[in-house]
C-alpha cells in the first residue's frame, strides 16, 4: 500500500453535512501535509467534495476557509517549518495565507457522484440509511475501475452488511468520527468479516497523523458509541416516562436531564444530548440497531411521539442548536417541550419545585467542567460518589440507579462482543462523549 498514492484522488460523499464537512477538512489537512512534502513535489492531489446541495457546498467552502485559518494559526510553529525553504514567506501571516491557498486548491466541489469514479479513496458521510449507502457504494464500485477503498462514517450499520450487499470484496472499513470531527479525538474503527488488512493499516496511519485516538469495535450494529448512548438514552426516556405518571411531563424531563448532567457530572444532560445528536437521528439509529439486537427492545415510543409532532432537535448549518426536548437560547436550555400542550414551558417556572423534590445535591459535587481536566479527578470523583452512595434523597437514588445502568450497559457491550475490553468502552465515553469518567468503574461499589 502506498499511503501517498492513495491520497492523490479522494472523494468525500456528503461533504457539506455536519460530519462530512469535518471529515473533508481533516482529509484536506492530511493531503495538504503530504502535498507540501518536498518528495511529493510535482504530484497532483485532488479532493472531491460531493454533496447533493449546491447551496450547502457554497457555504461549505466559506466555512472550510475559516476552519483552515484557525488551524493554521494554531499550528504556525509547525507550518513555518513546512515552508522553511520559501524565501518569500517571511511573516506568520505570509505563511498562513499560503497554507490556506494550498489547502483550498485541493478541494473541488461537485453535486454529482460521477466525480468519485476516478477516486482511489472514498470517505462517506451521507444519511444513516443502509439502503442508500449500499446503493451509492454499489454504483461507484461498478463504474470505478480503480478498485477504490471505502471508508464509511456509519455510526450503527454493520460493515459486513454493506460490504456484502454492495459487493465491495472487503474494500470497506468503518471509520466512525465523532461530532465535530475536527475537535473530537475519538475514531471508532470497525472491520467487516472480509475487510482487507491494508485498509485498516492505512486508516490507522491516517488517524495517527490526525492525532486522534483509535478504538476498535466489533462489527455489531451501533458499535460501542451508539451501543452505549442509545441504551443510556432509552433508560433516561423510560425513567422520565415513569416519573411522568406522578408529575407533569416537563418536570420529569427536567429531573432526568438534571440527574444525568449535574448528579452524574456529565457535560450535558441526556435530553440535551439527544437534541444535540438530533431526535430524528436517534430514532433512525435505533431503527438500524433494532433488528440486530434480539434480547432488548431498541425502540422509543417517546422519540416517535416527538417526531410525529415535528420536534426534531439537531443543529443548524452554523452549528447552533435547534429546539428539541429542550428549547435553547445561546446554546443554553431555557424551556422544556410539553407534547400535550404542544408548547415549551420555561425552566425557571419549574426548577425550584423540581429541585426541592429531588433533595439537596451532595455537598462534594463539582461541575463537569471543573472535574474533567482536573489532575485530581479520580480523588474528586471517589469522594463525591462515596457521599452520593450514603444519600437517600429521590435525586441521589435516581442518580445511583442511572450510574449502575450505565455501567451495566458498558459491561454488556464487552460480554456481547461489541467492545474488545472495558477500557475501550471507557475510552469511547471519555473521548467521544467528553465524559469525565468511564461508565465501567468502581465508584459505587
Amino acid at each position: 500500500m502506498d499511503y501517498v498514492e492513495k491520497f492523490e484522488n479522494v472523494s468525500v460523499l456528503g461533504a457539506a453535512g455536519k460530519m462530512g464537512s469535518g471529515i473533508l477538512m481533516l482529509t484536506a489537512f492530511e493531503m495538504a501535509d503530504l502535498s507540501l512534502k518536498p518528495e511529493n513535489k510535482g504530484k497532483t492531489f485532488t479532493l472531491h467534495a460531493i454533496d447533493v446541495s449546491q447551496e450547502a457546498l457554497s457555504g461549505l467552502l466559506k466555512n472550510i476557509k475559516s476552519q483552515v485559518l484557525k488551524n493554521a494559526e494554531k499550528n504556525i510553529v509547525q507550518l513555518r517549518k513546512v515552508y522553511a525553504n520559501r524565501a518569500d514567506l517571511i511573516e506568520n501571516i505570509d505563511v498562513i495565507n499560503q497554507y490556506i491557498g494550498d489547502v483550498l486548491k485541493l478541494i473541488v466541489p461537485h453535486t454529482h457522484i460521477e466525480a468519485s469514479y476516478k477516486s482511489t479513496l472514498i470517505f462517506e458521510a451521507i444519511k444513516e440509511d443502509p439502503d442508500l449507502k449500499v446503493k451509492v457504494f454499489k454504483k461507484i464500485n461498478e463504474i470505478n475501475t480503480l478498485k477504490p477503498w471505502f471508508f464509511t462514517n456509519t455510526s450503527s450499520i454493520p460493515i459486513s452488511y454493506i460490504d456484502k450487499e454492495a459487493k465491495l470484496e472487503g474494500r470497506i472499513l468503518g471509520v466512525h468520527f465523532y461530532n465535530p470531527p475536527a475537535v473530537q479525538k475519538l475514531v471508532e474503527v470497525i472491520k467487516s468479516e472480509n475487510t482487507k488488512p491494508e485498509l485498516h493499516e492505512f486508516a490507522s496511519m491516517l488517524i495517527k497523523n490526525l492525532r486522534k485516538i483509535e478504538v476498535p469495535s466489533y462489527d455489531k450494529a451501533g458499535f460501542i458509541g451508539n451501543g452505549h448512548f442509545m441504551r443510556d438514552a432509552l433508560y433516561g426516556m423510560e425513567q422520565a416516562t415513569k416519573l411522568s405518571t406522578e408529575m407533569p411531563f416537563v418536570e420529569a424531563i427536567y429531573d432526568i436531564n438534571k440527574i444525568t448532567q449535574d448528579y452524574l457530572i456529565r457535560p450535558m444532560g441526556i435530553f440535551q444530548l439527544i437534541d444535540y445528536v438530533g431526535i430524528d437521528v436517534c430514532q433512525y439509529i435505533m431503527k438500524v440497531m433494532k433488528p440486530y439486537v434480539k434480547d432488548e427492545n431498541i425502540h422509543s415510543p417517546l422519540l416517535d411521539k416527538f417526531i410525529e409532532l415535528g420536534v426534531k432537535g439537531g443543529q443548524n448549518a452554523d452549528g447552533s442548536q435547534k429546539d428539541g426536548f429542550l428549547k435553547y437560547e445561546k446554546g443554553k436550555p431555557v424551556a422544556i417541550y410539553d407534547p400535550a400542550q404542544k408548547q415549551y414551558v420555561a425552566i425557571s417556572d419549574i426548577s425550584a419545585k423540581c429541585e426541592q423534590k429531588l433533595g439537596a445535591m451532595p455537598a462534594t459535587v463539582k461541575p463537569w467542567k471543573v472535574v474533567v481536566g482536573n489532575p485530581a479527578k479520580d480523588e474528586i470523583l471517589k469522594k463525591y460518589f462515596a457521599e452520593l452512595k450514603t444519600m437517600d434523597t429521590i435525586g441521589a437514588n435516581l442518580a445511583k440507579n442511572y450510574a449502575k445502568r450505565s455501567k451495566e450497559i458498558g459491561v454488556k457491550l464487552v460480554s456481547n462482543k461489541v467492545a474488545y475490553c472495558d477500557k475501550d468502552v471507557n475510552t469511547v465515553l471519555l473521548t467521544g462523549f467528553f465524559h469525565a469518567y468511564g461508565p465501567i468503574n468502581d465508584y459505587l461499589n
Partner: protein
Amino acid sequence: MKLRRKIYMVGGYNTISMGTGRKEFNPKIERPGLEYYIKEAGQGTLKQIGGAKNVDEGVIANFMAARFNYQGNLAGFMPYIDEGLTYKPCSRVEGACGSGALGLMSGIRSVLAETADVVLVIGTEVQNTVKAVYCADILAGAGWFKERKEGHAYFFPGKFSDRAGHYYEKFGKEKTRKAMAKWYVNAIENARLCPTAQEYSNTTKDLMAVGMMEPSPRSFVDNLNVFDCSKVSDGASAIAIVSEEGLKRCGIDKKDAIEVIGFGQAENDITKPPKELTKLDTTTAAVKKAFEMANITKEQIATVECHDCFTITGILAVEAIGFAEHGKGPDFVLEGNTSRTGKVPFNTTGGLVGWGHPTGATGVHQAVTILEQLTGKAGEAQINIPADRPYGLTINMGGDDKTLVSIVYKRG
C-alpha cells in the same frame, strides 16, 4: 557626566493595562482605541500639574501603532488630549519596547537644554487589535527584519527561549526553572495589589505550579511556557518631566516629586547576535552609566523596575545590575530577595509579566511606579523604602538587549 540642572518627575498616571486576565476584557467586542488611551493618560497627568497651560512640550512614545492600529503621526494626538496643547511642540519617539524610556530621555534632554520646564511624556500601545500569532509578527520588528525568516513563529519568545536554554545548560535547568516560576509568583502577587494591573484579579491558588508548567514546543517555544511571558496589553502611562521652575509653575511640592539623579542610555547593533546569550551586556552598560552619574552603588537601591519581558530576562537583569554574580541570579530570586518583602523588591506592581506590557508605554509606566513608591503613594502595593537606601532604579529595554535606558531616582 553630571546633570547641569535638577530634573523631576511628577503627576504620574497609568490607565488600566487591558488584555487577557482583565475581567472586562472580551476579544470579541470592540474596545477603545489608541486615541482613548492617549487621552485618558494625558488628562490624568494634566489634572495633577495644573492643566495644559503649564506644559511647554509633549512627547508620545510608541512602538508599532503603524501596524497595530494603522496609525502614524502620533504627535498629532497631543492637542487631542487638551485643546490647550495646540501649537505646542510635540514629538513621537520609537525604540521598540524601550520607546517609553526614550520618551523620558527626550523630555529630560529638553529640560536640560533649557528649552522646556515642563514636558508631558505619554507612552502607549494598543496591541489587542490582532491575535497573538500576528502580534508576534509585529513585535518581531524590534529585531532585525532580515532575521525574521529564520526566526521562530513567536519571534521574541523564541529569542529569549534560546537565552533560557543556554542558561539551563550552563547553570542547571531545575534551579533556573524554579527561579523563573518564582519570578512569576512575585509578579502576580504584586499585580494583585494594583487595581490597574492586568493580573489584578488573578485568583490562582498554586501560582508556583502554574509557573512550573512544562513548555510545549509544538505550539510555542522550547524553553518558556506562556506564564514566563509578559502580557499582550492595551494601555498608556503619562508623567511630567519638570525643572525646579516647572515644579513651582505646577504648584507641586518637591516631596511629591521624584528627582532624576542619574541616567544611562546605551545602544547595541541590531544586526549582531548577543555576544553571550546568558548575559545582558547592554543592560549592564546602561546601568553602570546610570550608577556613575548618580554616584551611588547598587547597595543603596530600595527598589527596581526592570524589563521582565520574560521571567528569564528578569533573572538576567538581576545579574546585569550586579545583585548576583553570573549564574547566581536564580539563587538570589529563590532566596526571596526580589519579592516585595525581600532585600530589593523588583517590579512592585507586577512588572511586564503581572502588570502588563503595552510595549510603548512600559518605560513610562516604570517611572510612574517608582514615583508612587518613593512618594508613598503606591496604595496597597506600597513597599517600605528604607531611609538609608532611598533610591529607585528603572531599566527599560528595546529588542533583544539593544536599546537600553536605565534611570536612578530619589524622592524630591
